[in-house]
């Protein structure tokens, strides 16, 4: 499972790598080495599995959503990551990495957050493991996500508003990297998605692969066969890579759904794979939104968790070798799916996950007669204010 770490210095085809200031190279090697040794130890695995089961609430159900299946004309299973502690898949990764940081002897953890989901999941893990925690969050996001800021502070994290650049997620990552460069000896950077410099894309994928591993077992038990298609939303791409990866060698189609925001042609979107081109941002070579001069463009999506101009390098690899198909849906389509799932299944999905469902609704003919697993990566409670705001505009 970890061969990505030894092979080709963290490359997935031509994507990935470690494009960072020299100061951070030894720190990344240290994380890589710790992951290879501590992360593989029996003690680490036992502690993580215990936390995932008894603290976070794994395994999550694989739920056959009958009502929506009837409308779609194919059989849809939802992998219920929304039922996890903290309400999203993010905690699979933060528990894993925070435990790694703890066992490495690091005393302080930093992380970036956009809307606050990864920040909250990091704050929770650090509270549990008694690690000092600082979360970098764009000033714009601090203002529009007050309740998540309060959640992080409740769990003892320091929330640092980032006033540089566009004051959103990408600038929060810049600032977290600057902090890491400065405090590299004591600090662990807990990266939130399957992007960033090597070894983060591999580490995050591995910790999120529990989604796909469980789904695989559960579907084989329920249906005695593998699904035809897997669908998940792609921002940085951690829940999708976590669902896809354990099915990599199976005859199962992968579909990643990006955020088309106000439409690709409007320029206000977050479809790095769909409308970007390869480049280097935040330490990795991957598809990204950039202008003709290689300056990074600001992403847009109603779903804050998809609002990132880059994407994990493994997705870029799957795009180029066509192992996965990447599509996009607009804010509007995602909002419609958000309502529909709430109405017919009584499940309020996160706006991020609503993108996956929106694609299934939009292209239901493509899946006629199939069996499909969709990752319901998070619950929508966090989005209620945003949905009310958008719909009142």
């Amino acid at each position, binding site marked *: 499972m970890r061969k990505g770490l030894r092979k080709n210095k963290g490359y997935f085809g031509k994507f990935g790598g470690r494009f960072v200031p020299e100061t951070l190279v030894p720190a990344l090697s240290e994380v890589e080495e710790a992951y290879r040794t501590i992360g593989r130890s029996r003690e680490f695995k036992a502690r993580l599995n215990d936390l995932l089961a008894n603290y976070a609430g794994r395994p999550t159900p694989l739920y056959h959503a009958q009502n929506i299946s009837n409308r779609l004309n194919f059989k849809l299973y939802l992998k219920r990551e929304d039922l996890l502690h903290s309400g999203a898949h993010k905690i699979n990764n933060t528990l894993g990495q925070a435990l790694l940081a703890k066992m490495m002897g690091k005393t302080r953890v930093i992380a970036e957050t956009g809307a606050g989901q990864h920040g909250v999941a990091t704050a929770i893990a650090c509270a549990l493991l008694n690690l000092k925690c600082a979360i970098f969050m764009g000033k714009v996001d601090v203002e529009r996500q007050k309740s998540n800021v309060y959640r992080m502070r409740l769990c003892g994290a320091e929330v640092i508003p980032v006033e540089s650049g566009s004051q959103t997620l990408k600038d929060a990552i810049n600032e977290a990297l600057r902090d890491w460069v400065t405090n590299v000896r004591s600090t662990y950077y807990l990266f939130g998605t399957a992007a960033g410099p090597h070894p983060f894309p591999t580490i995050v994928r591995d910790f999120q692969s529990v989604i796909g591993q469980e789904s695989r077992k559960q579907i084989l038990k329920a249906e005695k066969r593998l699904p035809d298609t897997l669908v998940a939303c792609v921002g940085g791409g951690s829940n999708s890579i976590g669902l896809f990866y354990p099915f990599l060698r199976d005859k199962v189609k992968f579909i990643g759904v990006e955020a088309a925001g106000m439409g690709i042609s409007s320029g206000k979107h977050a479809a790095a794979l769909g409308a970007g081109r390869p480049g280097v941002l935040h330490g990795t070579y991957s598809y990204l939104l950039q202008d003709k001069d290689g*300056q*990074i463009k600001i992403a847009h999506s109603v779903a804050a968790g998809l609002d990132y101009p880059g994407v994990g390098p493994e997705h870029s690899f799957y795009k180029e070798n066509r192992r996965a198909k990447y599509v996009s849906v607009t804010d509007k389509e995602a909002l419609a799916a958000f309502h529909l799932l709430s109405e017919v299944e009584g499940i309020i999905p996160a706006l991020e996950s609503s993108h996956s469902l929106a694609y299934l609704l939009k292209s239901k003919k493509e899946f006629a007669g199939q069996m499909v697993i969709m990752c319901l990566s998070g619950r929508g409670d966090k989005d209620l204010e945003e949905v009310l705001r958008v719909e009142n505009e």
Partner: protein
Amino acid sequence: MNRIEEKLKQLKKENKKALILYLTAGYPSLAATEKLVPELERAGADIIELGVPFSDPVADGVTIQRTSAAALASGTNLTKIFRTVSRIRKKSRVPIILMGYYNPILSYGLDRFVADCKKKEVDGIICADLPPDEAQELLRLTRKAEIGLIFLLAPTSTPERIKLVTKASCPFIYYVSVTGVTGVRKSLPKDIRAKITQIRRYTKKPVCLGFGVSNASQAKEVLPFVDGVIVGSALLDCIEKAGRNYLDAAKKFTASLAAVTPHPSLSPTGRG
């Protein structure tokens, strides 16, 4: 021989240390950059680094973040920077290094970038987020074109990294004095001398020190151990504060630094 290399050799002969100044290209404007470079040379700068602005400068502190954003807002890009270098070359032969981040260079095209560096007489390249491990292609191209590709070492660098970087970096090694981003510091770390001594065990190439050096007294403090100092944020702060009088202010600041560069070296060959 490459102009940077030549300059460093000449300075060594004269028992002087190199004063390397960093300017964000396009700050406060490209016309200002064009004026500043020859004037700074006259005031005592030995080598000029022109910062290629990038939207996401992770290795930079607030000053260079601000000047980069301003330069980008007024439309600075590599094409225009090369044009400015051409104009500068009519007035000055000072060695020029382009310093920036990888993505704008990658987007410009590595082949085209190195070819234009050659054509416009740029002498070196520093890429803050490109360690030698990821630089095979750029190394190949710059070596062929005899353009310097300078890599960085940091206080966190292990012997393994020092070995790799000193081998790849040409014609000098850029030592980052602090664990941190660019910007003015009240004081410099105490471990500089020891780290430079360690680096010298692996290489005979010159070692220049940057990040955090902001005035003549700090420069004086480190000059005995290194072959040159690199000053950026403090110069840009000075330019920013001076407003319309930026040229005079920058010259005065440069002269104050240049006054300390004929520093007696601690090496046995030095006359001091």
